């Protein structure tokens, strides 16, 4: 039986691929919380969770169950619709960005190629098609996520939440620009916006875009820092700065709504690390089987995120804006110009 000239088993493989990728992200999100607590715990001469299950491995599940059974509190003064909507708006973009990321090479089923990228297919000749503006899609989804936080801060009708929401919006706007410009350096080398093509161009030891030119090297670092700022990780965790704003935008949230923000934060971390891997660190290329390469690189980057959190204090609101507008933005503009000269002079 065939649908649109393709066997049914092909569709089955496509669905299985989507499911596996989604489960992988969900599991990583759950266990990133555990890993963060363990890693930071050991960095801070603590043990971390070790009571629930062997080595505390069931901790994320216990946390999930606990949050699920907590009372849902919606403040009387809150704008109810926006209050309920906000966690969804934060969580969904965090997950769907993953749709365009190629996490492995293609595999063959019934004579057809199946690319390991959710939003991609191969035609009968084996040519892989994916979203040809994948990078733009990621940028769009990343900026959607901020609406969740702003909405949460505004709809809670609490002063601390409002300040948290304000900080989040200001922060994301300032860093998106620099992150976007840093990616331009990648386009100049790849000459494509398709992530599939960006990854396939990065084979070989020094094929990774971060090693292509000195300018992409700096751009890669700036992109990663901007990403940290965009997903509100330390040292840019101002919107929820515990010691200043109690919990920032999610002060009034409880139960599963809080859990959704929590998941969104970690899902964003996975996505951002995956995007950095794809754009700068060669995607699934490397010595191991392709999927494992990809996972290893993402996990190493996530470890760096946690490491940074254990080491650095928090920026102040205005200092963070200054860093974004006065340091990163001019630097990335310079990088684009420099990169253009470099490519024309040495690589053409």
């Amino acid at each position, binding site marked *: 039986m065939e649908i649109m000239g393709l066997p049914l088993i092909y569709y089955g493989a496509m669905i299985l691929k989507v499911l596996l990728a989604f489960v992988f992200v969900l599991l990583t999100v759950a266990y990133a919380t555990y890993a963060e607590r363990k890693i930071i715990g050991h960095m*801070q*001469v603590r043990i971390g969770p070790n009571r629930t299950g062997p080595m505390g491995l069931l901790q994320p599940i216990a946390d999930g169950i606990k949050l699920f059974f907590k009372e849902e509190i919606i403040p009387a003064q809150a704008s109810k619709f926006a209050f309920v909507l906000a966690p969804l708006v934060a969580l969904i973009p965090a997950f769907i960005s993953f749709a365009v990321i190629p996490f492995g090479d293609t595999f063959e089923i019934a004579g057809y190629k199946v690319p390991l990228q959710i939003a991609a297919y191969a035609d009968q000749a084996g040519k892989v098609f994916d979203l040809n503006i994948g990078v733009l899609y990621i940028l769009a989804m990343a900026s959607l996520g901020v609406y969740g936080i702003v909405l949460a801060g505004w709809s809670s009708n609490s002063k601390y939440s409002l300040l948290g929401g304000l900080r989040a919006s200001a922060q994301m706007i300032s860093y998106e620009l620099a992150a976007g410009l840093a990616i331009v350096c990648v386009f100049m080398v790849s000459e494509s916006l398709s992530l599939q093509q960006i990854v396939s161009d990065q084979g070989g030891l020094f094929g990774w875009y971060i090693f292509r030119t000195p300018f992409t090297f700096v751009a890669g670092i700036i992109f990663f820092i901007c990403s940290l700022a965009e997903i509100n990780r330390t040292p840019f965790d101002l919107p929820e700065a515990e*010691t*200043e704003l109690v919990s920032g935008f999610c002060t009034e949230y409880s139960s599963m709504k809080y859990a959704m923000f929590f998941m969104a934060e970690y899902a964003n971390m996975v996505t951002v690390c995956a995007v950095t891997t794809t754009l700068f660190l060669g995607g699934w290329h490397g010595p191991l089987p392709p999927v494992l390469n990809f996972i290893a690189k993402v996990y190493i980057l996530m470890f760096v995120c946690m490491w940074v959190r*254990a*080491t650095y*204090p928090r920026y102040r609101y*205005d200092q963070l804006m200054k860093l974004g507008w006065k340091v990163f933005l001019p630097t990335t503009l310079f990088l684009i110009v420099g990169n253009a000269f470099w490519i024309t002079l040495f690589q053409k």
Partner: protein
Amino acid sequence: MAQKETMTVNMGPQHPSTHGVLRLVIELDGEIIDKITPHIGYLHRGIEKLSEHRTYHQALPLTDRMDYLAPMSNNLGYVLAVEKLLGVEVPERAKTVRVITAELTRLKSHLVWLACHALDIGAMTVFLYCFREREKVMEIYEKLSGARMTSNYYRVGGLSADVYAGFEKDVQEIIDTFPGFFDTYEGLLTKNTIWLQRTVGNGVISAEDAIDAGITGPALRGSGVDWDLRRDNPYSGYEKYSFKVPVGEKCDTFDRYKVRLVEMREAVKIISQALNDLKPGPVLADLPQVCYPPKENVYNSIEGLIHHFKIASEGFAAPEGEVYQGVENPKGELGYYLVSDGSNKPYRMRVRPPSFVNLSAIEKMAKGSMIADLVAVIGTLDIVLGEIDR
């Protein structure tokens, strides 16, 4: 015409970074602070009034509940005031042990300050490192007095007991290891760009303003005023030890941070000198009217038991008069003003709490800055609410 509207935010008494139960009502213009009004009294236990109904010895345990992060320093000020009132001379060994324990207390208090200050600014790891080191001081506390925080170790005329066997070894370990730990903290903070950006130029208060507000301790020295009671009005034998008094220049949070860090290093040096100075001898003055009898007398002779009972229940009468004794506590000058009417209880005990006076400068230091700066200022003032409210 554009109208400016401010937002009133209630910060505390259950806010994570108000160090206990401080409550600040802040007027905010965006993130800029227009006005700060501290509301205190959530931890008021009436220690000054309570002590009027207790004998001089019974009032002593109340004092370590004031600045609960530096109990022995509080005890020291109180016993020195009572001794001054009575004219008691304390044996040399007791004095030296008092210096060692008071400086250990300074380390303990400053470690909590650094921990909380760093945590407020977001450096989580330093917090736990400091608490790890503080534990070592706490262990000595526990071995000395049986309590980790409310020590009540000193007595009028000396100490409640001589130090335990192995005390010298424990203290020597602190002398040997702590400077290395201080280097770790400096490595994590002093050279950290974000830490510098957050602390340099934050919470500036000029020397004149600091003196006008009555600020004392490291907060005053951070503003460049060279004033330390241990050196300028020595007590308990501090004149015998040589130590530097660090002074800041830029009057900001970073300078106060540096001052406290140097102070911790100097405290280690004082402890080391005092430990070398520790000679065997009695730890309680030979004054039966005032001091408790030795424990073997209490357990083995009826006279000793009666003596103990009399001191414990009735206490001793202090001559009529009034004294003031200030000591350099980790947080500033802690002063005890005692008025005696000739009975066995203080007629009036007035405490000059450093945290309370230092807190009064908060508006001057944080006005016009951002909320994040206010948190840093609360940290750098190093306040303890137990002492502010008493």
